[in-house]
């Protein structure tokens, strides 16, 4: 990846144009020699080198020589400035900024349920308003001297600016932060492309979910690739969006994400399209350090850290999860931890409310263990190198652009202050920048009185203090402009007398006159007796030890992950979920993640032996229909067909409900898209590998699935009376959506087949079909390479969908919910469809008026492969009870009832060759229960996934105790921070939403991470 990185950057170019030869001049030409030298300063050079008594020579905006004073040749006519006692740093660079960009209008979205509409943007652009590759920052840039001045005061000499609007946001331009025209300040018009997962000002509903944004980006890449080929062969009309995408493909992408999981999701796209990304992260990357170290992706880190919560009220504090408290404690160490792990990063100002906090935040990062040199690098050479502009920017080196600034104190000193900032060789001075440092010890003689005066503070904003004189305390105030100085003195007594002094300053002596309290004219002078010494505390620098990072990053996460164990369960009642049924007093041996042996008197060898006498051992429960562990939107739903989106893109490994369900004996689930539209999105079939990354939770042996839906949800029946415009509004329309989708998919397959049959030579001359992710997923269904799980209730439409499937010659794999399945059980059996249903839900909507709790039993007895699912984070914790209801309602045997939540859902998901029963060679996804698992009185004692003990009832007390202890420690620490004056926020929790398949919200309409 790094290789591609650099080749891409070859296309960048850099010129520092500081005059516009094409422009007419008002007056006479103003071409100056522009030769300057800064002598006798402390120079902060690359690789942490600090040169005291150094000289820098500049000419026409570039650095021409750097070296020890006296050893550097200074060309004739050079203006030399003496920087004794001052520091020189290369200017900082921020790659994530919107300096000089027009404001983004944030208007509220129209109702989400309107029929989909295409972009209303003028011009021949693509269909989606959130895809804006045509927006070139360079075209909209207008220098803003006020903002630039503020940035220069923070050490920034250049930023890459972009318009933070949309998902694909266009290109960013490198701009200098000087006071010239747009032409002068625009250093490089296109240095990076910008992406995000926020829709910005788009007025369109699509995409409404994170997975929708992922799909839209992917499709845009494919469209751009296709357009490039098709256009070359004159095979398509002009599309300004795709035209502009071509340029973006040659630029590195800066992708704004808000947390580590989203960062990893963005990197999936980077990988898939072999396109190098930089991530503007959320500052929590330390939680997934290994993953970032492995990716080696450069990060732009915010300098904002969470505020402590006000945890004064112990009951209010309960709402703050330990994960938030731990993040509060560790976030400032994020950069130091990344540095230790070798992850490259730079800092950005983005997200910092009060820009003046910048220096303070740098000191904080320093306190938390990031070395001075690495902080400087993260603000200079690191960002420059990320975009390949380091041959011109990012350090004090000969030949580079003269971007540097001068301070009287090191950047990590509380006295830091940018006194002068050189941008491309042009000097910008701090407004209050006296020629001489006024700070120091003075003997002040006013008329006949002598005072000891001490001047401290910063170079530009000094503070005066008088020592006791004849046992009387005095106060003093100092001000000045240029070489002028004014003092005001008064004794701290009841006289309220003031002496007012005015004069001029030289290096060591001030003289002048003034007015005494009685109105009399007096003269005064101050003579420096000692120079100023910066005695401010130097921060101690060390990466604090926080202990291991829990995985996932929640209270119940692992601090050391369990390994696959070799365990012999002896004398258990074994519910095989196989033909053998329930075996009394049987041994089961698991080893290396699989079930190794089932039998009697098995040899333990070196296995851990668990006496399971009186206990029950079963396969882990598999939930065919779940919506837990999903980030930012379970429904795309904005169009009738969204087969292109995938829950697999948005699996949330940190959801506490995974652990809660392990505690209920669940080891695997299909995470389904919602049911807001007839053809929803692709599923993720996961094992509950608590502690693993999302990608590692997916079952690599599971075939791909997709969610379909029928009935009230897809026809928007329950969304309010005004939602009556989007097609379909009836079951009649739903059928036609399916026919249309599959007709289009057939045509798509034909198109590709025709193309693929061409010879290599012919292919070069032919316009290839456009790769369409929606049709691709649909055509996989036709090829029986992808399988459907269809949300369904009413018999008519269930029957209909089977006829649709028959006519396209594929089998409808699973009807999920299927509460009227019992009415068409014979037809389902004949078709070969399976059923995944609720035990006893009904009456919550009109279409379930005929739902009966005997459904599962009837279907099972009719020979339909039948499962009981949850669709609910709470019910997912006790699917064993739900299965037992099929004994009560419909009289299934214990074996049959138990199959409803183990081998049957495994069959429906086509993973039964690996999981779902206790069988030799299958995965050791097993549960040990203390009672008959179908009993309301049973609870899991242990839950294993891949032979790893991921839930152990006997460990629960210890886990809770650790959580309580850690919470208490952090609460004490937060209260100390509050006492010390830290701003606090009221307890709250960033919620993990609990999704049902009806849920549909717009997850991308927020602006929390956009730049100001």
């Amino acid at each position, binding site marked *: 990846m790094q290789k591609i990185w650099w080749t891409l950057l070859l296309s960048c170019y850099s010129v520092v144009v500081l005059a516009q030869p094409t422009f007419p001049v008002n007056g006479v030409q103003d071409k100056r020699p522009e030769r300057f030298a800064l002598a006798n300063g402390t120079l902060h050079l690359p690789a942490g080198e600090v040169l005291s008594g150094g000289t820098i020579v500049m000419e026409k905006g570039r650095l021409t020589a750097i070296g020890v004073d006296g050893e550097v040749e200074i060309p004739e006519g050079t203006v030399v400035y003496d920087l004794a006692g001052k520091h020189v740093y290369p200017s900082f660079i921020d790659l994530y900024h919107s300096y000089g960009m027009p404001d983004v209008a944030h208007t509220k979205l129209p109702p989400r349920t309107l029929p989909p509409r295409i972009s209303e943007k003028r011009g021949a652009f693509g269909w989606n308003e959130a895809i804006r590759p045509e927006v070139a920052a360079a075209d909209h840039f207008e220098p803003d001297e006020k903002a630039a001045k503020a940035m220069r005061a923070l050490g920034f000499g250049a930023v890459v600016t972009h318009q933070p609007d949309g998902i694909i946001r266009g290109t960013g331009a490198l701009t200098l932060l000087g006071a010239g025209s747009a032409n002068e300040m625009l250093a490089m018009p296109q240095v990076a492309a910008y992406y995000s997962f926020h829709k910005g000002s788009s007025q369109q509903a699509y995409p409404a979910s994170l997975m929708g944004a992922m799909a839209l980006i992917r499709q845009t890449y494919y469209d751009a690739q296709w357009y490039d080929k098709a256009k070359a062969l004159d095979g398509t009309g002009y599309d300004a969006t795709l035209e502009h995408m071509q340029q973006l493909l040659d630029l590195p992408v800066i992708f704004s994400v808000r947390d580590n999981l989203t960062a990893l999701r963005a990197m999936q796209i980077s990988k898939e399209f072999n396109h190098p990304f930089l991530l503007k992260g959320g500052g929590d990357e330390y939680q997934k350090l290994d993953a970032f170290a492995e990716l080696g992706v450069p990060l732009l880190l915010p300098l904002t850290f969470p505020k402590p919560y006000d945890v004064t*009220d112990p009951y209010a504090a309960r*709402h703050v*999860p*330990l994960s938030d408290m731990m993040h509060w404690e560790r976030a400032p160490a994020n950069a130091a931890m990344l540095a230790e792990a070798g992850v490259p990063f730079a800092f950005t100002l983005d997200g910092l409310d009060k820009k003046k906090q910048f220096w303070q935040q740098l000191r904080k990062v320093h306190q938390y263990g990031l070395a001075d040199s690495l902080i400087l690098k993260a603000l200079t050479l690191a960002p420059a190198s990320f975009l390949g502009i380091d041959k011109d920017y990012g350090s004090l080196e000969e030949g580079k652009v003269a971007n540097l600034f001068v301070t009287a104190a090191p950047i990590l000193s509380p006295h830091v202050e940018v006194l002068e900032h050189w941008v491309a060789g042009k000097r910008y001075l701090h407004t209050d920048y006296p020629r001489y440092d006024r700070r120091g010890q003075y003997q002040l003689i006013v008329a006949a009185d002598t005072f000891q005066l001490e001047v401290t503070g910063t170079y530009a904003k000094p503070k005066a203090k008088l020592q006791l004189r004849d046992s009387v305390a005095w106060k003093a105030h100092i001000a000045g402009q240029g070489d002028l100085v004014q003092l005001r003195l008064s004794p701290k007594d009841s006289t309220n007398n003031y002496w007012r002094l005015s004069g001029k300053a030289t290096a060591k002596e001030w003289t002048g006159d003034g007015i005494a309290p009685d109105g009399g004219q007096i003269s005064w002078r101050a003579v420096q007796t000692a120079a100023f010494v910066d005695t401010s505390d130097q921060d101690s620098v060390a990466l604090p030890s926080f202990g291991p990072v829990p995985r996932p990053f929640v209270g119940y996460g692992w601090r050391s992950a369990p390994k696959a164990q070799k365990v012999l369960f002896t004398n258990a009642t074994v519910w095989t979920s196989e033909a053998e049924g329930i075996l009394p007093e049987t041994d089961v041996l698991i080893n290396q993640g699989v079930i190794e042996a089932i039998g009697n008197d098995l040899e333990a060898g070196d296995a851990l032996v668990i006496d399971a006498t009186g206990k029950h051992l079963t396969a882990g429960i598999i939930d065919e229909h779940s919506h837990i562990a999903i980030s930012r939107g379970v429904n795309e739903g904005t169009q009738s067909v969204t087969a292109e989106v995938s829950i697999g893109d948005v699996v949330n490994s940190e959801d506490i409900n995974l652990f809660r369900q392990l505690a209920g004996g669940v080891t695997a689930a299909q995470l389904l898209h919602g049911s807001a539209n007839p053809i929803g999105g692709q599923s993720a079939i996961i094992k509950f590998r608590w502690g693993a990354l999302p990608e590692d939770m997916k079952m690599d042996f599971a075939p791909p699935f997709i969610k379909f839906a029928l009935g009230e949800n897809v026809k928007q029946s329950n969304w309010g009376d005004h939602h009556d415009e989007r097609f379909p509004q009836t079951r009649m329309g739903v059928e036609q959506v399916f026919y249309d989708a599959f007709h289009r998919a057939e045509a798509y397959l034909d198109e590709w087949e025709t193309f693929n049959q061409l010879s290599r030579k012919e292919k070069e001359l032919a316009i290839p079909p456009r790769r369409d992710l929606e049709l691709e997923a649909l055509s996989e269904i036709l090829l029986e390479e992808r399988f459907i799980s269809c949300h369904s209730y009413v018999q008519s439409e269930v029957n209909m969908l089977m006829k649709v499937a028959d006519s396209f010659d594929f089998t409808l794999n699973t009807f999920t919910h299927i509460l009227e399945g019992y009415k068409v059980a014979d037809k389902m059996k004949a078709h070969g469809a399976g059923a995944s249903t609720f035990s*006893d839900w009904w009456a919550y909507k009109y279409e379930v008026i005929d*739902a009966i709790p005997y459904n599962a039993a009837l279907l099972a007895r009719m020979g339909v492969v039948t499962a009981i699912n949850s669709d609910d*984070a709470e019910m997912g914790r006790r699917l064993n009870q739900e299965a037992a209801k099929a004994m009560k309602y419909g009289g299934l045997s214990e074996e049959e009832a138990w199959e409803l939540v183990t081998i049957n859902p495994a069959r429906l998901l086509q993973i039964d060759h690996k999981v779902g029963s206790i069988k030799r060679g299958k995965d050791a996804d097993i549960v040990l229960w203390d009672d008959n698992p179908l009993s*309301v*009185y049973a609870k899991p004692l242990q839950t294993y996934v891949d032979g790893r003990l991921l839930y152990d009832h006997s460990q629960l007390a210890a886990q809770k105790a650790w959580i309580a202890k850690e919470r208490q420690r952090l609460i004490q620490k937060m209260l100390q921070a509050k006492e010390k004056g830290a701003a606090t926020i009221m307890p709250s929790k960033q919620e993990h939403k609990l999704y049902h398949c009806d849920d549909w919200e717009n997850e991308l309409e927020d602006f929390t991470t956009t730049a100001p």
Partner: protein
Amino acid sequence: MKHVIIALLVFFSIGKSIAQNPAPPQEKPVLIMNATAHIGNGEVIENAVVGFEKGLLTLVADARTIRLDTTGYRVIDGSGHHVYPGFIAPNTQLGLTEIDLVRATRDYAEVGEFTPHVRALIAYNTDSRIIPTIRTNGVLLSQIVPKKGRIAGTSSIVQLDAWNWEDAVVAADQGVHLYWSALYARRGWWAEQKGVEKNEAWSKALQEVRQFMDEAKGYAAISDPETIHQPFEAMRGLFEGTQQLYIHVNGVQDIRQALTLVEEYDLEAVLVGARDAWMITDEVKAAGVAVILRSPHSLPGYEDADVEQPYKTAQILHDAGIPYCLSIDGSWQVRNLPFVAGTTVHYGLTREQALMSISSAPAEILGIDDRYGTLEEGKSATLLLSTGDALDMRTHNVVAAFIDGRQIDLNNHQKELYETYKEKYGLE
């Protein structure tokens, strides 16, 4: 003797394939012999005889200790079966809603913040198709409750086999329902971003409740008001000790504040929901309030909470000596009431204690324990006969049930569909 039961069942299904008609008053005395009787107060009689006449229990005894002449009785052999007092479901919307998502069928949410005058009883639809499915599992009485606004309305207690709401009523307009504004609440459309948030309007809501209570209390002291104020009239019983205030409240701070009102206005009060009551059991106990606990089939209230907390709360309240019962909010869900009680058993309670939380305890809390809630002589013959342990779905099947001595029809819409389709498919 199982054939007797089967014969009874057949008798009651005949001619009732369309609707489940309410049963007529008890004509003949009944004796249930040889069953295990779970009295509902913690006691169990292994080989029991349970007799009732004219709707009232006349005999509950150990068959081995008495001699008895069965002449004139209809005798039911309950060998191998279990007899329980009819289960009582507090805090439901039974009969107030038919299909939750069909607005025309929803009758539990009235407009307005303070509407104690709206009465659940008169909206109670005895012909709801949901109700027969509820009593099929042995839930024979319910408190029907309006919900919406701050004070949502007045609840009543009904038995679940009636021609009309006048027939159904067991205790009319018995409770006023206050829905507490939570100090920390889930807010806004953007729940993922806002999450749990402090409710800045909480103090104002409290002031409004106090103001309303103050004025209602003042009004109640006027013996003959010039103008009838319907909302205040509906509150009168609270101050005269004839009604209870049901406070729907979950968080610790909210409970604590609610308890101060109970004391301030000297109310008979019951906490409903009460998710966090277990954290301050001393205060709850000292306030003398009872608790209608939300379903143990709930998620823990906080990310870091004990994963088993909802299952354990009942036991903590029990150990603290706080009168409590269990509930399931909603309508069709209520048939699972015995199983939510069963769920609490594994976490410290005995089966008989769990049984009390859906029989004698709700009867006491709802103030109907003089008639219902236990199998005791003199009380209503409201009971059920199950094939096994009623708290476990694995074993619970009601074969006969009586409300006030009337043997009710256990058939329902769902069973009928089941039978219809078994017949279609030729299944047993």
